[in-house]
């Protein structure tokens, strides 16, 4: 049985060209970028080069890139780092109730530490209402954090509008762009964001590396202490190999983003087409034209995620859901609960299929047929 991977929003396979770029670094460049000798300088040189590439990919300055271990750390640093550094300006933070847990749980932690947090609701189209944000903003708001693309539904938030609204407010604007980066061209100035999180493994790069963009003017406390790396904002010997892999993945992504988007959109349509031909009853969570092409979130009424995912896996189809079901606990998807209400059945019967480098038209169509067969068996 051929295994088919439709979970690229969870993580992606590494591009061969990324691996090829990393191998010689593993073999040859082991120096510590902070060292005052040739070995160190070589590593530092590569690091700087990569930093420039990453900065350029979001139209930022290289000094504004802080390497982290990934998206979660970038979100933590953005929220906690700015909250602590700007306490004197206020203690109010605004985010949304559809954020990734890296943001949500960090916000909850800050609440415990005495900050006030407003969680904005979303409308039935999955997007926040700018008017809600306007109402929630207070003179002592120090940070607004809204994710760019939701990881479960692929729904794109109106980041540019939010940036526009916040232009004349003291609050910093952070966006978790982990899921957006591979699909949407980002210009931090045009968007008006001050902080932006990105992860390499979502764009065919290695795991364990990501970055936080932090506008030069903003005040940010470090969360860990040690050496001078990352201008003291994130000390620790740099993951040079990871950074090189990340850089290569970004170069490829920037070059191929458009063609990838077209390809993934075609996969998505082919997938849906098969389900329709097979007369499967389903609903799509999120309007197709307000989601990124690589994600489709589908509700299959009369089923539940634990049974669906196990059946898909046993038939070789890898997908996932926002409902956590580890250790036998089914927590309804917090994202779909925010959109449709906590008791809506779709919060426990929706599956995210996400397309990417591991897919071909043939395996997408084959996966859709396997999915259809399972749905027919389970929904009688």
């Amino acid at each position, binding site marked *: 049985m051929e295994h088919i991977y439709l979970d690229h929003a969870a993580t992606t396979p590494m591009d061969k060209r990324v691996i090829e770029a990393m191998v010689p670094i593993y073999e040859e460049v082991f120096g510590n970028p902070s060292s005052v000798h040739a070995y160190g300088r070589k590593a530092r040189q590569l690091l700087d080069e990569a930093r420039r590439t990453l900065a350029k990919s979001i139209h930022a300055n290289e000094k504004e890139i802080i390497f982290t271990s990934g998206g979660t750390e970038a979100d933590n640093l953005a929220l906690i780092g700015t909250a602590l550094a700007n306490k004197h300006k206020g203690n109010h933070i605004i985010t949304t109730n559809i954020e990734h847990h890296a943001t949500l749980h960090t916000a909850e932690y800050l609440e415990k530490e005495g900050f006030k947090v407003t969680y904005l609701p979303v409308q039935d189209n999955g997007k926040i209402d700018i008017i809600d944000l306007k109402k929630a903003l207070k003179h002592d708001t120090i940070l607004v954090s809204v994710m760019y693309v939701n990881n479960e539904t692929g729904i794109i938030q109106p980041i540019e509008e939010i940036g526009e609204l916040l232009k004349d407010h003291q609050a910093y604007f952070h966006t978790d762009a982990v899921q957006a980066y591979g699909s949407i061209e980002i210009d931090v100035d045009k968007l008006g964001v001050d902080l932006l999180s990105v992860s390499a493994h979502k764009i065919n790069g290695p795991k364990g590396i990501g970055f936080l963009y932090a506008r030069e003017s903003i005040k940010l406390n470090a969360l860990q202490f040690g050496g001078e790396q990352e201008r003291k904002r994130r000390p620790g010997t740099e993951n040079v190999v990871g950074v090189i892999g990340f850089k290569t993945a970004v170069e490829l992504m920037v070059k191929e983003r458009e063609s990838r988007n077209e390809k993934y959109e075609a996969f998505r349509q082919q997938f849906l087409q098969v389900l329709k031909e097979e007369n499967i009853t389903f609903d799509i969570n999120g309007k197709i034209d307000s989601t990124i092409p690589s994600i489709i979130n589908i509700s299959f009424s009369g089923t539940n995620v634990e049974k669906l995912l196990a059946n898909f896996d046993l038939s070789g189809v890898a997908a996932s859901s926002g409902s956590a079901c580890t*250790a036998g606990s089914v927590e309804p998807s917090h994202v779909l609960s925010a959109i449709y209400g906590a008791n809506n059945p779709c919060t426990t019967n929706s599956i995210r299929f996400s397309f990417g480098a591991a897919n071909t038209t043939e395996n997408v169509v084959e996966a859709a047929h396997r999915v259809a067969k399972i749905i027919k068996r389970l929904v009688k």
Partner: protein
Amino acid sequence: MRENKDIRVVVGMSGGVDSSVAALLLKEQGYDVVGIFMKNWDDTDEFGVCTATEDFDDVVRVCNQLDIPYYSVNFEKQYWDKVFTYFLDEYKAGRTPNPDVMCNKEIKFKAFLDYALDLGADYLATGHYAQVREEDGKIEMLRGVDSNKDQTYFLNQLTSDVLEKVMFPLGHLPKSKVRKIASEHGLATATKKDSTGICFIGERNFKEFLSEYLPAQPGEMQTLAGEVKGKHDGLMYYTIGQRQGLGIGGSGDPWFVVGKNLKDNILYVEQGFSNESLYSDELVATDLNWINPEVVSNEFTCTAKFRYRQEDSAVTVEKLENGNVRVIFAESQRAITPGQAVVFYDGEVCLGGGTIDKVIKKDHVLDYVG
């Protein structure tokens, strides 16, 4: 003939050594084995720690050692509705329920079996110590070879339709051998200690647990003749034949619970392990399940167990018109307890069982027993 690799067996895995070895043996026999962890009860404490998470981690470790896929499923709602509600209702009625029997009937071999079938399973396997065999076209359940571990008592409500889809890979093994297999294979659960007590109560204090769900009504302890001997904490905390926790001092033989008066909230106690009032010679059982109804005549002799791990006793079973049975003991029995299961055997074959409802002595129902 289908090869084992084309036969899918879903194993109910608890994170304990028995179900781990059950999965291992099936894997060694070449079956398409899938491990599933079932969560029936949420015991998350104030720190967010839940034993289910640790148990599931053990399932994950073992399944990875065996290289089999694993998933989890949640039956908290069904467990609450079908098992826990029954458990509380029985205590409210002054009886001593057996939630394990109910869990096997309603959850493990019903909801969970259906779930396994929905995953394309041909069989459901568990780590129970019992055996299934096909004899003359009939599916029978036999005691586990390890008589100290035999769990057919708890499985008495299974039907042959269900047993046809069930495997008990440990039924022919002694527990010591199961431990040995686990340690020979270096299974992560090889030295994990067996779970004790009722699954949802775990290691907690039973009295404390029950008091969270049922209001305790303290009352008097009396002899059957009406002599007040002290106070009880609430009838639900006591079971027939119990000695511990009565706190009756004085000289002579120790005191035992012999019955309950629910209406007047009185706990009956008498002196001496072999006190006459603890003995009976018949019972009436309800909710009968016969694994192969066609082999059971209207009146027959067999052996029976009235409690788990008790020696068998000779009985005569008489079917009543309403589907209940009268069970006449060859020798009078001590501490027959309403709410517990009575399970019937023909040699090694488990015939089925029911719930003890009335206890009879010299043709009179012992009202004080419940």
